[in-house]
């Protein structure tokens, strides 16, 4: 293990993370909300410590990272980003306890969107902006961002990229990994700007438009309002945000191809077709279920169902309706959505459509071989055959996801939480969704969870964001053996 190298890279990461706090610093200056000093200190500490780490580990050893090491860089990079990202909350005094501040920060970076704040609107604008910015940076990946802007990472970049975006289908858009990362960030930025524009045109303040766009595109779910999107009570905003949540749930390489002029790419991509089909069916089911039982008109039922299903399945976590008052069927659908997730290569979390599709196909193949014992059948995604090692890794992912979910649920219930809360809080954090049911429902927050429980959930968030393997491998003793 090249510990120096790992330390050095995390140092670089922190240095730039500190620089990114300049944005909320400016916001606090504009609004003179009193959070200028906390941000200044945070910048100095974050960038300073990063710089020191960088200088101390000056090494002649320029060998590139192995896959093992890049997993350590990514995991510890995220843990440290969460730590330094919590500093502004602590320094400003908005959040008192270290646990809560860290929870808010990790929830931001992992684009979970679970909050411990009861009165969000009381926060200074600078901090509100910082919350949104952590989500926006975390959505496309802080490591991918560094790869994009730091060309000297070189070959190791590919390893880091794979460790942070471990999609089962690798789509290298450009010959060089740093170009691929840059391309993805450009697409991401473009769509975000488009959403800011559309929200602003609809009458949202520029500040709110930016904050919400920054939280939609990474499928984050932080809002500047106590009542989330419901507070605006505007069908236009809900429509725009629903649209962009769905866009954020689609593989960004498809957006790239679309922008390059291949307009039928969404219909052609097999995963995208399934994702949109599932989305449409679930919206339809929830609409028909909530019509009459909750809402008096179909249009109203559709409006809330479409928003809420899109929000949960893309793992965004914005709220326009208190879905805990919906019939049990709709609640079960939403709970299911927490596990389904959006497309691979999107900013969404959870298991993801491509894995579900391949798991179902694999299952069908087993049944098929019982009928035709001599049959040879390839599992294909569209027209491309999927190699067996990818399938094995997907099965492994699924088993680990469910296994770790169960372990975490047991931990939560051991802390004295009720069944629904234990179950949904873990589902909502490991899937990077945000709001769950019960104590952590759409109108409540995570403040009431015991501190130990919060740490468990934070672990779940990082697990979910880095798609299990990258994190869990560090806990295996064999990893550390020479």
């Amino acid at each position, binding site marked *: 293990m090249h510990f120096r190298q790992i330390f050095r890279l995390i140092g670089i990461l922190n240095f730039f993370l500190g620089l990114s706090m300049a944005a909320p610093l400016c916001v606090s200056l504009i609004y003179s909300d009193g959070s200028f000093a906390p941000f200044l200190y945070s910048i100095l500490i974050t960038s300073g410590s990063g710089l020191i780490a960088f200088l101390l580990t000056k090494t002649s050893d320029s060998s590139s990272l192995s896959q093992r090491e890049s997993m350590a860089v990514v995991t510890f990079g995220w843990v440290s980003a969460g730590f330094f990202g919590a500093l502004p909350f602590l320094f400003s005094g908005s959040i008192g306890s270290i646990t809560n501040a860290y929870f808010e920060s990790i929830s931001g970076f992992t684009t979970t969107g679970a909050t411990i704040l009861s009165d969000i609107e009381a926060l200074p604008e600078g901090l509100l902006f910082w919350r949104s910015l952590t989500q926006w940076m975390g959505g496309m990946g802080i490591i991918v961002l560094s790869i994009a802007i730091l060309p000297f990472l070189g070959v190791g970049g590919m390893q880091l990229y794979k460790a942070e975006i471990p999609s089962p289908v690798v789509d290298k858009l450009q010959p060089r990994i740093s170009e691929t990362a840059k391309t993805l960030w450009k697409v991401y930025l473009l769509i975000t700007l488009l959403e800011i524009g559309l929200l602003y045109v609809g009458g949202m303040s520029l500040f709110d438009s930016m904050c919400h766009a920054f939280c939609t595109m990474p499928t984050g779910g932080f809002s500047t309002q106590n009542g989330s999107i419901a507070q605006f009570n505007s069908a236009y905003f809900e429509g725009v945000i629903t649209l962009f949540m769905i866009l954020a749930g689609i593989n960004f390489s498809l957006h790239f191809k679309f922008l390059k002029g291949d307009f039928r790419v969404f219909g052609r991509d097999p995963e995208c077709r399934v994702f949109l089909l599932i989305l449409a069916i679930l919206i339809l089911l929830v609409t028909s279920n909530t019509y009459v039982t909750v809402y008096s008109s179909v249009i109203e039922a559709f409006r809330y169902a479409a928003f809420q299903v899109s929000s949960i399945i893309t793992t965004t976590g914005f709220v326009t309706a208190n879905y805990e008052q919906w019939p049990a069927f709709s609640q079960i659908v939403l709970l299911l959505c927490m596990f389904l997730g959006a497309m691979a290569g999107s900013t969404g979390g959870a298991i993801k459509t491509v894995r579900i599709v391949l798991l179902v196909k694999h299952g069908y193949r087993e049944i098929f071989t019982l009928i*035709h*014992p*001599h*049959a*040879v*059948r*390839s599992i*294909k995604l569209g*027209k491309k*055959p999927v190699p067996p090692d990818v399938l094995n890794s997907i099965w492994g992912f699924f088993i680990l996801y469910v296994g770790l979910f169960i372990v975490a649920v047991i931990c939560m219930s051991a802390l004295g939480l009720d069944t629904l809360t234990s179950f949904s809080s873990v589902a909502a954090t490991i899937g990077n969704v945000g709001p769950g049911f019960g104590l952590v429902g759409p109108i409540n927050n995570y403040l009431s969870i015991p501190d130990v429980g919060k740490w468990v959930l934070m672990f779940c968030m990082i697990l979910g964001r880095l798609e299990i393997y990258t994190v869990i491998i560090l806990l295996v003793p064999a990893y550390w053996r020479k």
Partner: protein
Amino acid sequence: MKIIIIGAGDVGFNIAQRLSEENHDVVVIEKDPVKIRSIQNALDVQALEGSGTNPSMLLEAGIKESDIIVAATDNDEANLIVCFYAQYLTDFITKIARVKNPDYMKHTEIFKQDFLNIDLIINSQSEMVASMLKLTEVPIASEVIDFVDGRVKLIGITIKEDSPLVGRRLSSFHEYEQSILVGIIIRGEKVVVPKGEDVIQANDLVYMVTRREDIQNIYQIMQIRREGLSRVMIVGGGETGLALAESLDTTTINTKIIELDGQRCLELSEKLEKVVVLNGDGTDRDFLIEENVDEVDIMMVLTGDEENNVLISLLGKALGAKKTVTKIAKLSYIPLVFTIGIDTVVSPRLSAIRAILQYIRKGKVVCVAPLKAEAVEAIEFEALETSDVVNTPLSKVKFPKGAIVGAIVRGEEIIIPRGQNMIKPHDHLIIFALKDTIPKLEKIFTVKLEYF
């Protein structure tokens, strides 16, 4: 016409035979002295021993005075090289090359452009697949031949002993006049150009002409309900098997493909979507039963081993497959296997021969299809204004004995003719003719003038 043929294998030999019988000057170039001797003994052609890829050999064969060169060896690259030399040595020669490799077939435009300028590329595999696909359209037929882009179909049906047609006079079909015409009956080794009083017998192979939209009339005559083809089993996942499976993959037909080699099965399964790929031995009786061979409508046996193909087809028939199509490359086997109960044979070489002959005889002969036993052909002629036959009722035209008009195509209209129908200038006629009547027909239609 002077024609040079490179390679005296099955394909080269047969083309040489047919063309020399039609009074063309044929030169055959072949490496193998044994084949040279046998061709010299059997045919009235000039046989030169040597390699076709040797330019001086081509000059010796008189390439500069020749009209057509046919590169018909089993080696694709050699065939292409021959055409390359031909292009270099002379400007006006028509070049025909046999190409088997499917990769080459994907980019035929490269070979057809100025560099090689090949006039016709024959790929027997794609011709074979096309003819098998036509069989799936009319499952009761043992042969289906298309004319006029498929608007007229010539359908060959073997009459089973329990068929309602056995013992019926042809004149009793008058209700189907204008829609179906029985063109040729093949009875054992004999070819019958039928008249009204002829009677259909069991085991006859009856060729009927009909319009595409009138096919259901044939089902009516046969008194069987039209059942769409629903199950096909392909044995042998080689290139031909895969090409056929890929074509069937896009249809609603349930298709299974059986391949012995496990690795090849994986490749097949990656290329096929709905087709069920089975890893097993086509000669394994229990395996075939397990995969419900008894419910199969057509079993296509396409492995590389032709003796095995015959046996697998017989096994399949014994186990209940409704019909079998057997791939046989060796032409000498073909007349033999019908007598032991094989329904339909596809042959890459036969396909190549047909395609090459069709092309060589072009001019005003639009389409030629040698039928089973090769003694009879279905020919598409265009009636020229200068011809004696135009504007005369058919019954008054002095056709040679052994020729019959199967259909008249007049623009969009397709006429299944009777005695009083008239031929008009520029009509296309589909005529069945015994081989020896062809020169007479050519005279009547003054086609020969158009040859050069």
